[in-house]
């Protein structure tokens, strides 16, 4: 491992090779959201038509921001705190904001991984536990809650989460969730135990395995009946949808959150690079691979969902067929799925009254295809049900949940790096404390804080964090990143940085995006987002068995104290930006000397140790 020493005498870790770096960035960007958020958006926003706002947002907002972060990290060779301090001490708050956001996101994100682990542990049983209802207490029938909803709903809400009926009832700590959460944090710790040395090896697996599984699922799904229905339904474009501004907003936010920018993790990762690395190519590569993965995942997911819809449709028909056969005493198997239509018409003509009295369910394939779900609903309910219908369900369940685990772990690495790197940069711990201990303490503290998500109301809290921590603060941080690099550091200096690193000037496209287009787009997205959120009192969906329309989820408004917490979650991370700004401003005014430049005079990079490679190159 080569060590680059600057006059600050700090060891900076380095990537073993370029592939590790790229895989880490791709793994960070490609997360569970690519699998369970993008297909849902594609489906509700008119399939193929959604790709247009999505690609526009990628090109004009995502890629410039990504390029900016990778370039500034690689040039200034510091994590998020150091980079902003180098550009201007007044902007130091940006790094702190990124760190706080990374911490908050990592605690709820790992809870999702704990749920994935729970399902993974249960996938080794035959039959799968979410395929049948448990018996009730006196063994005369099935559990009532399970009968009213479906076995997979019951397994998710009752046996996994043991969810309470609203966010105010906290319930008790579910010990099985604590156990899974401990496993999740243990996994994160062991991969991060040696910093990027161990993590760089782990990403070879965690970043590539999901693609393997998606391919396997795709091949399998295409052999199942109904896959083509699902794919057609997903990709049939509905061009009307482009007139709806909500679509553009969702496309922009999806690209933004999908690329995992503004967390500070990407800046840290690229700071471990060597200086003369073509970060333009890296940024474009990571951005395109992220979007391509979303698309590829949605093809696999929708092929499977098409199969599931067809299965549900056939089950619906079978129920009707049995009702008709029994009532009219026809020989069994005379009515089949194929000739159901003709039989139904004939019977309806001859004895409509009797047919009506049977209260047959109207079965329509489109209704089943319409049952969209995103987020945890897609993974743990809808997809789990689909897996039961496939032969060899255990294998598919295991593959699916290990894929989700890999996707989540590789994103967690970026989040944790966004927390650990500032801790090192800010010198919050004395030097004699080994890195493993710091990492261990961070994991332990995060685990303890995340115990709130193992309560009965834990899922509701995860939704709160998911909706509000990972949205507005990131938009604000990203906007200030643009301002900081392009306007405080200066476009000219930044262009020179890029020429130094890549050997050529950034093209007019990049410059136009950085200076005008992307910040404007971000501002527009931020304002639109805030307006839409502020228009209605936020609601949430509660699983309440006593609700009269059960098994539908009950829509409840957040109580006031939760609303206050939401506001805190949005504001506290970005509070550091103005706070540090004012603090440093006051410090500067108080200091009499005016010769202090804005740059850090203690880190004079003019005296860097020549590395062996540079010596070889010269020779």
């Amino acid at each position: 491992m080569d060590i680059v020493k600057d006059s600050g005498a700090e060891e900076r870790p380095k990537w073993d090779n370029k592939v590790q770096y790229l895989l880490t960035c791709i793994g960070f960007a490609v997360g569970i959201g690519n699998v369970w958020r993008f297909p849902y958006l594609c489906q509700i926003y008119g399939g193929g038509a959604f790709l247009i706002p999505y690609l526009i947002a990628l090109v004009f907002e995502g890629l410039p921001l990504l390029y900016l972060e990778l370039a500034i990290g690689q040039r200034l060779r510091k994590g998020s705190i150091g980079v902003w301090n180098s550009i201007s001490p007044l902007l130091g708050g940006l790094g702190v904001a990124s760190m706080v956001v990374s911490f908050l996101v990592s605690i709820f994100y790992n809870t999702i991984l704990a749920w994935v682990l729970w399902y993974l542990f249960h996938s080794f049983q035959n039959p799968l536990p979410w395929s049948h209802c448990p018996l009730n207490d006196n063994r005369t029938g099935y559990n009532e809650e399970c009968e009213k909803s479906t076995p997979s709903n019951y397994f998710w809400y009752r046996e996994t989460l043991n969810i309470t009926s609203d966010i105010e009832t906290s319930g008790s700590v579910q010990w099985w969730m604590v156990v899974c959460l401990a496993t999740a944090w243990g996994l994160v710790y062991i991969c991060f135990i040696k910093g990027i040395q161990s993590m760089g090896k782990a990403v070879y697996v965690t970043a590539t395995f999901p693609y393997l599984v998606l391919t396997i699922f795709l091949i399998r799904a295409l052999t199942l009946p109904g896959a083509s229905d699902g794919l057609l339904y997903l990709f049939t474009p509905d061009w009307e949808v482009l007139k709806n501004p909500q679509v553009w907003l969702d496309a922009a936010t999806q690209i933004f959150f999908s690329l995992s920018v503004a967390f500070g993790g990407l800046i840290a990762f690229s700071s471990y690079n060597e200086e003369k690395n073509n970060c333009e190519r890296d940024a474009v590569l990571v951005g395109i691979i992220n979007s391509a993965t979303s698309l590829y995942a949605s093809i696999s997911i929708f092929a499977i969902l098409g199969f599931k819809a067809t299965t549900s449709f056939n089950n619906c028909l079978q129920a009707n067929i049995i009702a008709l056969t029994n009532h009219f005493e026809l020989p069994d198997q005379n009515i089949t799925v194929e000739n159901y239509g003709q039989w139904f018409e004939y019977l309806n003509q001859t004895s409509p009254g009797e047919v009506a009295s049977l209260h047959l369910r109207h079965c329509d394939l489109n209704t089943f295809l319409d049952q969209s779900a995103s987020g945890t609903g897609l993974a743990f309910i809808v997809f789990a049900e689909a897996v039961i219908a496939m032969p060899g369900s255990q294998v598919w369940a295991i593959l699916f949940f290990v894929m989700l685990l890999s996707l989540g772990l590789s994103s967690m690495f970026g989040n944790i790096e966004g927390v650990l790197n500032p801790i090192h940069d800010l010198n919050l711990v004395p030097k004699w404390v080994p890195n493993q201990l710091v990492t261990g303490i961070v994991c332990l503290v995060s685990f303890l804080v995340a115990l709130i998500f193992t309560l009965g109301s834990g899922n509701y809290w995860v939704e709160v964090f998911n909706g509000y921590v990972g949205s507005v603060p990131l938009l604000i941080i990203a906007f200030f990143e643009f301002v900081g690099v392009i306007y405080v550091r200066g476009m000219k200096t930044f262009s020179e940085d890029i020429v130094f690193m890549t050997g050529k000037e950034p093209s007019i496209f990049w410059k136009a995006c950085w200076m005008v287009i992307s910040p404007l787009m971000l501002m527009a997205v931020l304002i639109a987002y805030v307006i839409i959120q502020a228009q209605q009192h936020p609601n949430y969906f509660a699983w309440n068995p006593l609700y009269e329309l059960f098994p539908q989820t009950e829509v409840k408004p957040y109580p006031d104290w939760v609303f206050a917490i939401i506001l805190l979650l949005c504001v506290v991370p970005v509070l550091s930006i103005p706070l540090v700004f004012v603090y440093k401003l006051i410090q500067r005014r108080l200091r009499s000397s005016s010769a202090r430049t804005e740059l850090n005079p203690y880190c004079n990079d003019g005296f860097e140790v020549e590395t062996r490679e540079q010596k070889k190159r010269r020779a």
Partner: protein
Amino acid sequence: MLEKSLFLLCFSSALAKQLCAPDASDGYKVRLSIRTALGDQAYAWNEDELFLFRATLAFAMRNRISGQQFEVSNIIVCDETPRVSFWFVVTSPSNTSHLVDKEEVEEAIRKSRNRINSAFLLTDKTLEFLGIPPTLAAPVSPDTPPWLIVFGVVMGAVGAGIVVMLAFSVVQKKRKKDGKVVDEAVEEETRAKTTDNGAAGDGVYNMSFSDDERFTEM
């Protein structure tokens, strides 16, 4: 003589028909779904199969109520449909005009349900006795839930890995302290002092002078 026997036959069959009727208070409706269960290997339902059914039910009654010799003639069937469904009642062997109680018939069928099913190669779902729900199988609950076993394996591996890697890094640090790397560190320090400040070749960008133009290349 002939007339008498004919009369008795007609009388008994008429009586039988009266005892068995759809929605009889002591009767049950049976529904078979042979083609659903067996597909291509389905057998046709005919008089002989019906005879087997009556014999099986007689066996079930004998099984339940010891002492009474139920015969095939004690099981009376009526209202057959192409669905393959029919009603049946059970008469008492001692008094053919007296029907056995519904509860007793239910108990008998519950007790021998498995035997009745296997006689026809059917299951609880495909051979239905309307009004007698099948007893649900007791769930198999192993002593240790299987998920705990998997969790134990994973957590054990993770824990062992953590311990190994921590021990490894402690050992490495001790070896470093033993002095092998100290020499290299001294070497690097001397090199740091004697290096040029990168003006030759590709130089290092000195950030203190970022406002000025770059070094002229030599």
